[in-house]
């Protein structure tokens, strides 16, 4: 079985990991257009070459980042997300104005 080097737990069988998709920048959910949000959620580069992607080590619930070649399946590097994310990403969706408010307004 393929072995993946988890930055937290060391080398483990690939069956312990869940793929989390290409790393991409999240647009501001409060100000982006539907198209931009769709681009973020559904579209991807999906090219052959080295990509930066999320992985989860499922038994320990630990998310990390890998650089992997999508043609050869070689994993060049795995590292803790703190290398890229220096501060916590806050995700707060704008509160939708509810219908009842509109009616009373």
């Amino acid at each position, binding site marked *: 079985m*393929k072995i993946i080097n988890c930055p937290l737990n060391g080398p483990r069988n690939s069956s312990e990991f869940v*793929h989390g998709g290409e790393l991409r920048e999240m647009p501001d959910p409060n100000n982006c257009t539907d198209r931009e949000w*769709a*681009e973020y959620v*559904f579209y991807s580069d*999906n090219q*052959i070459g080295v990509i930066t992607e999320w992985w989860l080590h499922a038994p320990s619930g630990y998310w990390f980042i890998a650089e992997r070649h*999508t*043609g050869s*399946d070689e994993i060049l590097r795995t590292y803790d997300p703190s290398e890229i994310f220096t501060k916590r990403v806050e995700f707060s969706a704008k509160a939708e104005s509810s219908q009842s408010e509109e009616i009373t307004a």
Partner: protein
Amino acid sequence: MPFSLLKYGLNKDYPFEQNADLPAPSALKSHYDVVIIGGGGHGVATAYYLAKYHGITNVAVLEKGYLGGGNTARNTAVIRSNYLTSEGVKFYSESVKLFQGLSNEFDFNIMYSRRGQLTLAHSDAAVRGFRQRTEVNKHFGGKTELIDPQQIRELVPTLNMNPADQPVLAGLWHIDGATARHDAVAWGYAKGATQRGVELHQLTEVTGVTVEQGKVTGVETNRGKVSCGCVVQAVAGMSSVVAAMAGIRMPITTYPLQAMVTQPVKPFLDPLVSSPALHCYVQQTGRGELVFGGGSDPYPLYSTRSTMDLKESLLAHAVELFPFMANMRLMRQWGGLTDMTSDYSPIMGLSPVDNYYLDAGWGTWGFKSTPICGKTMAELVATGKVPELIEPFAMSRFDTFRQVNEMGATAASH
């Protein structure tokens, strides 16, 4: 059955078919009205219908490898229309109908064989899902019934009714379920297209796409440049890579999909059997081999290698369904590159580039749609208008959050 077969049967001499082969390779012309990228089933079917129904024959199909050597050669040839959405059922039922007439139309046997497909429910939730699919099918053209364990036992006496301690509660019996010889489908379309004047260029790889003022005007290949009026892209697992040449980004991720086949044994299994809960489907070919398939690999990759992990997990489940298979030997294994969309429906129609048409996102389920894809894509090219049948599959559905969700009806059945 093609009528020529009957003629051969009555012939004393070894039957000799004139024009049995494809035309010899020729030089690329400098201009084609239509360039089709990808010589899989979808590409050659589009060329065939363009020539047959629309009289458009200045067409080149450009294939980087050999005719039908991509997923067309690698699929497990499940043909069915028991999908979940009305859009899906309407579309796939048309394809099943076209498949039924193909041998006669080509005068070439594609070995279409209607076996019926049985999908197993191991939970109440699955039974509810099957009820819905049965009703949707009845309304939109598929022939599907919900059947009980006794009927399942009669259809497939060798099936273990309690595989992996997950009792079989009901079955979705799809009478139209079938298989066909996948290579023959590609050959039949290619032959029909080239006889009508279409050019098929194998070993011709598209390496670039020329777009001027938002409109495609040509392609670059390893054999030189070609200008063209429009392009149809039908490259399955390479969809994102080729689309990027035209500056198009797609909602597609490429995953390997593996399958395998055993040594041949006496016929014992007529229907195609699949269990979504066990991520596994099994069918017996006309030669007696058992074909197994399951879901795609767990992470994206552009590689057609086979893995031990997949064999272990898939065969463990297959042996649960048919325990005596534990003594059989695997004969071949292979993989293909599947272009997966998040809603398990295809991407067909217009693209952000004018005159550049997409036939992609066929993932693990696009063999069965080969005829109807060819027909609708040809209509789109010839008329410039998106046929109603494929309107729901426009790439722009992702921008408006109008997915056509077929995941439940596709994941382990193809």
